[in-house]
């Protein structure tokens, strides 16, 4: 019988791509082949350390038709909560860990688009690696705009140039002749173009707003975030679970989702950055301070829901009753 639980994999190879980026090759430990996936997919990784399990989502960068292995690329971020640092410093060839089945919250608009344009900043290149493979296989039109500090810090630079000559535009900000990737190029994209953004929250926000101001319909704008946008203070609040009557206190250091999971409540979730909607919970009472990128403004006004991974209770009551 097929299981949709976690998959055990072995770390088979580690490649230092750039000074800060490592590529990890993961091979199935028990299965013959890994599940198929489509361009833009990611996996959740679960690595055990002395404090428990570190769960992180990473885009797949291996070829979508290669089911013998998955490859992920991780940038070491000293400011991170520990996931990337652990992967860089502790994970060795031969280690075994668990991963989720592939999920795709950032799919290509295959049928609708005449031309696909990718805008990547830094490690935001990763989901586009598989998307470009899929488009190439189907003979579709695309171009890549990719910003990094230097050529040396630009992960996959040689591979991209070799695979997609003439389709990649690089922008290096810390060179003798710095070149900045700006949203202005979007003014020139032909009708039927779909744009895709991946990078820091500020970059994605800037490009989304620019695309809207140039008149792109919302269905032509796609993006993926690696972090929750910092949108205001994180004051503590209290939620009551309508089904059990339990109360959960959410401190300023944690999200509602983290507080629920800590209490052993089986709350749904996936991306943890307010982008996929998987953690949606019905709100029975109280006002929500929406901080996600998932709902449109009219949905926020009409639906009584909250994404527990990022949204909080609104002042002044700071209390919510949830249908959990």
């Amino acid at each position, binding site marked *: 019988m097929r299981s949709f639980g976690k998959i055990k994999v072995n770390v088979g190879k580690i490649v230092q791509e750039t000074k800060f980026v490592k590529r990890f090759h993961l091979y199935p430990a028990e299965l013959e082949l890994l599940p198929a996936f489509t361009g833009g997919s990611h996996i959740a990784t679960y690595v055990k350390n002395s404090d428990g399990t570190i769960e992180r989502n990473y885009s797949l960068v291996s070829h979508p038709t290669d089911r013998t292995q998955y490859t992920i690329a991780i940038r070491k971020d000293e400011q991170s909560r520990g996931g990337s640092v652990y992967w860089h410093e502790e994970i060795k060839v031969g280690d075994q860990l668990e991963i989720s089945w592939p999920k795709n919250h950032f799919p290509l608009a295959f*049928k609708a688009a005449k*031309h696909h344009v990718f805008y990547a900043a830094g490690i935001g290149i990763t989901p586009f690696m598989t998307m470009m493979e899929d488009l190439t296989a189907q003979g579709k039109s695309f171009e890549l705009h990719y910003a990094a500090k230097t050529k040396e810090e630009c992960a996959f630079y040689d591979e991209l140039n070799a695979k997609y000559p003439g389709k990649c535009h690089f922008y290096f900000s810390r060179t003798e002749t710095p070149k900045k990737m700006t949203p202005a190029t979007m003014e020139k994209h*032909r*009708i*039927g173009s779909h744009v895709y953004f991946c990078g820091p929250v500020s970059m994605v926000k800037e490009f989304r707003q620019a695309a809207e101001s*140039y*008149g792109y319909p919302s*269905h*032509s704008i796609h993006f993926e975030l690696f972090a929750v946008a910092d949108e205001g203070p994180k004051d503590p609040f209290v939620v009551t679970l309508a089904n059990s009557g339990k109360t959960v206190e959410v401190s300023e250091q944690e999200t509602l989702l983290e507080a629920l999971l800590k209490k052993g409540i089986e709350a749904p979730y996936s991306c943890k950055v307010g982008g996929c909607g998987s953690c949606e919970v019905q709100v029975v009472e109280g006002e929500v301070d929406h901080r996600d990128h998932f709902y449109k403004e009219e949905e926020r006004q009409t639906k009584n829901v909250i994404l527990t991974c990022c949204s909080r209770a609104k002042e002044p009551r700071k209390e919510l009753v949830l249908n959990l």
Partner: protein
Amino acid sequence: MVYNSPVLFDKSATMVEKFTVRQKRRKLLIISTLPREAGLIQQLLDESNGQQQYELIEIHDEFSLKNIGDVLNRQKMGTQLYILAPWDEAVTIFTEAIEAGFSEDEIQTHILGEKKRYVYCMKCYHLQEVEVDETDTICYHCQISLEIGPFFSRERKGYIGYPYNPALVIAN
């Protein structure tokens, strides 16, 4: 065109009685085969009030209509297309626009005169024109009676025609 690309039909979401400005679009592209409907275009331009650039293409002959794809293909993102034409010409322009990459959200269509309606037979897949208010018909190809359903198929380019046996219909 790809499988289930949008097609123009009598209840298309692009059908409008009056053109309206989509504030976020940068450009208005107006394609008209009806010069005498200048009032509708002027109304649109008045509403825009110079906020967007516009391009007006007036089609006076078949050659221009056949080459409308060239105009559509050179458009940039942020363009809103307005089609002002009788049915058959509107279908040609609409189809070329979809082929160029416009979505239904980026098109408004105003038809002068009658809209056409098509039904396809679920038995033989023959497609035929029907009157706007017809509820059932006979398939020209296989002669079976068809009840015209409410569902439009983009693939078949017509409403679904459900075969039935008129002898088994109980009169009220």
